[in-house]
């Protein structure tokens, strides 16, 4: 399995311990396109800070308890009177946790409302529907026609974006660790999640709720872009599909329509209007195939078409391995041309 972000994986390798300080090693060990400890969003930043404070507290408390036990075992503590023992129990067991936990809770309560706050009116809204095992994505810019896409999310940096989440089949959970916490997608309900990216870059989102056979293969790339770049991208996505430019792609389009692909897939601007599977209008411009499983290129397209069930066990899309290689290649060329 190829990973579409392997170029960034160098960041995740720990630095040479010799030169770098322990903290640097730790921080480097926390980086990555899917790491909640390498925040690129307001919510993720808040939660990562909270984690580090709590992790520090945890180490301190654990060491203190271990030291107390050790000295008790070693008999370093002088023979206890009943009264001293009571101090131990009330102080260490009841008072200390009460004080610490109250403080922690108060802090937790303080940061909770911003994490739950809806995006201000006029913000970009993106409806995402989790389906076994891919993502239906619909951009709903304020005052404009919605645009339906799939399996990739691009966001403008610095702006709060509201995700409107649901699922038609089973429970999924929408999670972009770099940007913030997760939110479940529950059939029959609509949940909401607001995320605000703070830096540009490419990240990875995944389904966090076990949703059946290929739960592990339900991911999506997340690209945070400058505002202008984002607007241009969205405008391009809004446009209908380009007509095939070369004969191979032209043949591919014919094969695409002939083999019934349009029953499930839509390619805006053609007669393909299926709604069961992902919209393919600009599939050639996406970073991945099969919802974050394969890096998108011609070979991967062929592999996907011919072996859907092997790439993603249990997937609804039938495989087209019975088609002649030339025909598969043509379809792949057509899809690749849909940028």
């Amino acid at each position, binding site marked *: *399995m190829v*990973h579409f*972000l392997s170029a*960034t994986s160098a960041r*995740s390798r720990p630095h040479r311990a010799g030169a770098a300080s322990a903290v640097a090693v730790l921080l480097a*060990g*926390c980086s*990555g396109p899917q*790491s*909640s400890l390498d925040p690129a969003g307001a*919510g993720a930043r808040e*939660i990562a800070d*909270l*984690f580090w404070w*709590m*992790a520090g507290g*945890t180490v301190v*408390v*654990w060491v203190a*308890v*271990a030291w*107390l*036990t050790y000295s*008790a075992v070693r008999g370093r503590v002088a023979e206890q009177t009943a009264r001293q*023992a009571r101090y*131990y*129990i009330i102080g260490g*067991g*009841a008072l200390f946790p*009460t004080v610490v*936990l109250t403080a922690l809770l108060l802090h*937790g309560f303080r*940061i*909770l*409302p911003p994490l739950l706050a809806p995006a201000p009116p006029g913000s970009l809204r993106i409806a995402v529907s989790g389906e*076994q095992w891919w993502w239906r994505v619909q951009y709903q810019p304020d005052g404009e026609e919605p645009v339906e896409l799939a399996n990739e999310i691009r966001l403008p940096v610095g702006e709060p974006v509201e995700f409107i989440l649901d699922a038609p*089949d*089973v*429970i999924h*959970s929408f999670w972009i*660790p770099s940007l*913030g*916490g*997760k*939110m*479940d997608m529950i059939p*029959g*309900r609509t949940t*909401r999640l607001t995320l605000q990216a703070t830096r540009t870059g490419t990240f990875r989102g*995944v389904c*966090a*709720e076990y*949703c*059946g*056979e*290929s*739960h*592990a*293969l339900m991911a999506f790339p997340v690209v945070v872009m400058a505002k202008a770049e984002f607007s241009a991208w969205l405008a391009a996505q809004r446009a209908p599909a380009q007509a095939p430019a070369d004969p191979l792609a032209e043949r591919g389009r014919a094969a695409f329509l002939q083999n019934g692909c349009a029953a499930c897939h839509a390619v805006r601007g053609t007669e393909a209007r299926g709604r069961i599977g992902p919209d393919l209008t600009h599939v050639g411009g996406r970073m991945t195939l099969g919802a974050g499983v394969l890096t998108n290129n011609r070979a991967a397209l062929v592999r996907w078409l011919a072996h859907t069930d092997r790439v993603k*066990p249990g997937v609804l899309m039938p495989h087209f391995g019975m088609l002649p290689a030339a025909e598969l290649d043509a379809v792949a060329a057509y899809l690749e041309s849909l940028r």
Partner: protein
Amino acid sequence: MNDQPRDPEPLAAEPPLALQRAQEARLRAAWTLPKGWRYWSAVNNTEVGVWYTATAFLFFAFGGVLALLMRIQLAVPGNEFLSADTYNQVFTVHGSVMMFLFAIPVFESIAVIFLPQMLGARDLPFPRLSAFGYWCFLLGGIFLSGSLFFGAAPKGGWFMYPPLTSAYQPGIGADMWLLGFSFIEIAAIAAAVELIVGTLKCRPPGMRINLIPLYCWYVLVAAAMVLFAFPPLIAGSMLLEVERAFHWPFFDPKGGGDPVLWQHLFWLFGHPEVYIIFLPSIAIIAMVVPTFVRRPIVGYGWVVLAAVGTGFISFGLWVHHMFTTGLPGISLALFSAASEAVAIPTGVQIFCFIATIAAGKLVRSVPMLYACGGLAIFVLGGLTGVMVALASFDFQAHDTYFIVAHLHYVLVGGAVFPIIAGCYYFFPLLSGKKLSDRLGKIAFWLLFAGFNLTFLPMHFTGLRGMPRRVFTYPEGLGFDTLNLVSSIGAFLLGSGVAVVAWDLIRPKTRQPLSARNPWNAGTLEWLPSMPPENWGVRSIPEVDSRYPLWEQPNFVRDVDQGRFYLPDAEEGLRETLVTTAIDAKPVQCLRLPGPSFVPFWAAFTIGGFFILGTFHWWWPALASLVVGIGVVCYWLWTATAKRPEKPEKHVGLGLTLPLYQSGSASVGWWAVLITMLAVFTAFVSLVFAYFFYWTIHDDFPPRGAKGPGVLWPCVAGALLAAAWAATMLARRWNRADRAGAFYVAATASVGLALAGAAAMLAGPWLTGMDPTRHVYPAIVWLLAIWTALHAVTGVLFNGYCLARRLAGRMDARHDIEIHNAALFWHFVAATALVTVAVIAGFPLAK
């Protein structure tokens, strides 16, 4: 100091040696085990408890092997060792086996072995019920684990969230989970009933409530939690199975249902479950620590209070498993606070142990090593628990490997290590031999290092974004090294388990017997000589301290020479004492049943209902259930509520006790009461479901939807109330020895109950409510059926009483049956009234 009479003292003089030998011979004969293949009909707590524990350990090993398979699969990215489908079955079965076939049963089985011994009782009050529980567990466990070898195992996760587990998983895997585990949960409730009655009613005289060994307190709390935690899951499983089999849309939003309801019902069970596992395990530490620091526990009252407090608080935390379902902030804040609060009683317990160690002089030992290692691991799990209890942090951590790390720290540190400590500590009481110190230490370091190597990195795997329950992951996301380290650690951990297993099963014939009370402990379970006799305790002592072996002079001698109660089995029968719940004043000499295969057949036939039901062979399943009810009736008829040959018996030290008690003085009445509390909890869960639908819908019951009407439910309520009244009269007239009046009242109650059941079903039937169309008719039908089934069960109770009186086995003085039936009918009446109020009254009030 107080005006209570002084506790009786043991006999001042030693009974003649010849008498002692004769008493021992008679006791030995009464408690002897059946020979040959009939051995498996034994019901002695020491035998059944050991089978139970050994079977639970086998399932633990099985679950462990599954864990290793998962670690092989996840050792490297993109591995193809297991297919996605197999992996999903493996992780589902791993979680389910560890929870339902190891953690819960092992707590109950260890308690079955040691509770009577700690309480100076000869056995638990219902030995055949323990045996029944064991056979249910074995049958259900083999069925569930075996499914994996046919690729038919459940694969919805141990949490079984619908709609994945309803419409999206055809095949029998999910049915197997729902029905198989319901069966095992019912067995677990049976064991819990036994343990509660055992702790409350079968203590030695003088062991007032403030003298109960801590282990028994913990078991009491955990068993009580089982009563209230399992029923919501059983009710939920019933709803889900009915949805799968008959398409009643309880969790299907297309029919007005809601998948989140399952999550509430599941976690109402699932969170207390964690403490049900943790408390009885930490209880072992509460016994081990005082022994090895040679002093009583410091802060006994604090520990008890903390255990009870933990039990209560644990029922208010379940929503922290649902922080990411889109709940409003106020719920998140409330359940965060409640979840943090549970750290306080836990902290109190740990500091009591530390204070005890500090106050005493520690003797190094293998059990103590495991106790300390377990605490070190558990404390870290508790601290990460504090972290994830904070909703904001949980938004990131939830459903990632951070949680996998957290839960294993809590459960392995809080349960597995203490249980192994218990193995090394208690083993001499089972076989008369000690386990090896050397192997124990080797295993400890393998386990401790292996565990931390496996699970410490997982905190970071999770925070770096790896979700749980994934059969593979792509390379280059920063998971690769962490996962490889975890996989290596897992094998180290597995090798530690193998060393412990070898130490347990290695032949020990050439090893000398352990000394009696080898650790110089202070509590009653250490009374037995080596190897232990089947009778449990030679004479049932009068106890007036928490550590009688330390604090009561000449205690062992007095017990051994039969200077206390029941030193003999004059009639050749198995006997133990029943005492009052608070003050442990002796009130009855209880005759216990001997070996029998009936519990096995009862488990087999009732299990048949669940197993055949899995394949949706409903008629054979129903037939198996009917046979099962027949077996249970035979069991009750032949072995319970026997009329003794004399009303009273001298039990020693000048005390004469009745041999027969009925009503609240009898242990059977307590068992019915406790069982019915569990059953009523399941009913309350169904009512909760009704009102849950009301909260999520703007309009529930839906406007214009047909309801059951008012007439028929009210008629049903009136008939069932009349049946209840007739049962009360039957009890009164039986006691007054007015046989004719009794027969009239009891017969009337049967007729009224049957009519009431029919009327209850007539409501939804006559208004044509179709339960497959919408969740409203579905839940109304289910409440009506539930109530009608209770009425029919009440008919069985009252019919049984009629038959007993006709057969001359029940009379005015010997009336256990009708007292228990009356108690059951209180619950039927309450169920009927609530059902009528909900299905007929609530739509009116709306």
